């Protein structure tokens, strides 16, 4: 790692990172709630997971241990598995209904 000269090393408060994480998480929630395209909804979930990862890494920095990195690694793996299955499910839905509008996928209920 090349080291930058100390002069231009201005630290950023840790809470900024956490706030950024919260903002992204909230955006993800908003996307989940307000969007109607199934894939976009799913991507909003991924955004939430990313926000969580940022929190993990930031906390890891604060605690000076790398557990948080491990956790976000697991989160990534899980997200990958989730994406594989989720997109497969979305494909089956699309195959049977020809639509990705979440409101139109509602044949159940009475």
């Amino acid at each position, binding site marked *: 790692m090349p080291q930058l000269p100390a002069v231009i090393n201005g630290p950023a408060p840790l809470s900024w990172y956490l706030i950024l994480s919260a903002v992204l998480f909230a955006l993800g929630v908003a996307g989940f709630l307000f969007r109607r395209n199934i894939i976009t909804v799913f991507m909003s979930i991924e955004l939430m997971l990313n*926000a*969580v990862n940022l929190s993990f890494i930031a906390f890891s920095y604060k605690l000076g241990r790398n557990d948080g990195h491990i*956790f976000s690694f697991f989160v990534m793996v899980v997200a990958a*598995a*989730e994406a594989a*299955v989720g997109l497969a*499910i979305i494909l089956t839905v699309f195959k049977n209904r020809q639509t990705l509008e979440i409101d139109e996928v509602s044949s159940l209920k009475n």
Partner: protein
Amino acid sequence: MPASFFPASAEYLRILPEILLTLFGVAIMFFEAVLSEARKRIFAPLAAAGLGAALVGSIVAYGSPGAAFHGMIIVDGFATFFRVLVVAAGLLAVFASAEYLWRENHPGGEFYALILFSVAGQSIMASANELIVIFIGLEISSIASYILAGYLRDDPRNNEAALKYFLLGSFATAFLLYGVAWIYGLTGSTNLEAIRLALSAGGAPPLLLTGAAAALMFVGFGFKISAAPFQIWAPDVYQGAPAPVSGFLSVGPKAAAFAILIRTFETAFGPIAHDWQPLMWVCALATMIVGNFAAIQQSNIKRMLAYSSIAHAGYVLIAVTAASQTGAAAAMFYLAAYAFTNFGAFAVVTHVARKGERYVKIDDFAGLARRQPGMAAMLAIFLLSLIGVPLTGGFFGKFYIFKAALDSNLVWLTVLGLLNSAVAAYYYLRVLVVMYMKDPDGAAESLPSAGPALKLAVYGSAIVTLLLGILPGFVLDFANRAALR
């Protein structure tokens, strides 16, 4: 390579059930690839054997209790109880689906492999002692469940169930994770015991934040146990998924989710129990009310059972609200009784629904008592148990829960819960009425008699339901001894 790099053999013993389940799952996938179509009947027995082995494995694992893998999991009575429970649920699911899959022209090893993997995930959840393991276990169980819910991929109902289950489930998981992140940040650990220590120590992090983190985690758990207001997925999923899968979903993942809920909230968040109790109180009440009052209006039996399972989650939440050892024991017993009862009900529904699940209206059960008195009697037992009539497991479950609640001075919650259970009687009775007091619809095609495996599942569930109602002592004593703290 240092010798300490490899965990001790006792530690492997402690995850024996998971190892066995995974091995059998992989074996099934292997045979799926190499066997001819004609030989595919062996999958169900193979899966059953795997689950049986896991059952034995859990008991063997209980022979050497303790934490393993750096405290990631812990094998204790509590874990063993839930392990046995989820494995039994898997076993029932295998029995109930063998015939179903042939009926729907979808025989295949994947189904059983997924059940085994899902059970493995639940088993991990049962014994997890660390938030990350909880999370991964939860995901293993959930992702397998998503697939199972949409297993008949040409059926739009299945697709929809899988989609909703998946989207809302992942959404909830994100909340859970965010909560975990904050707990990690605040307490510096994800080990439940360590969190407990951190929260009870002098310099505990601000309650507002721990509370917020706990609430975030509860959102995640709440989704999995279908607690109000996070229950919205359950009716659609249970209605849309294949009937045996619905049965499995309403039992296995739910029990495991409760296991981690109880373990997390009573171990890790035990020191702040007084602060989360009011929230849990409201949630329990809302869950019961939503479940029961929505169930009354249903005409589809799967949907009705879905709402009923929401209501039952509400009852268990009462026990969780009690935040005591008796509460935990009551929840354990209730979940055991509920598991067999509810699965049995779904198994009968599986049978009556017939090919393509065309007969899932409550009215389709008309005259079942005449056509197949045995099945009708079993369903009657299950429904009575769900109502909470004595000599069934459901009764003792409710009894212990309300007892635990009163122990913790939750008088009003108890009374409201009891009134709720009286309301619930109404919609269960409707099914009984239709079965026993209405004549079969002439238009309905004849109902073939059930195959041996399904019968085994139904009658087995009924026997356990009755056993838990007549001689609850054994299970209850174990639960009492095993309950946390």
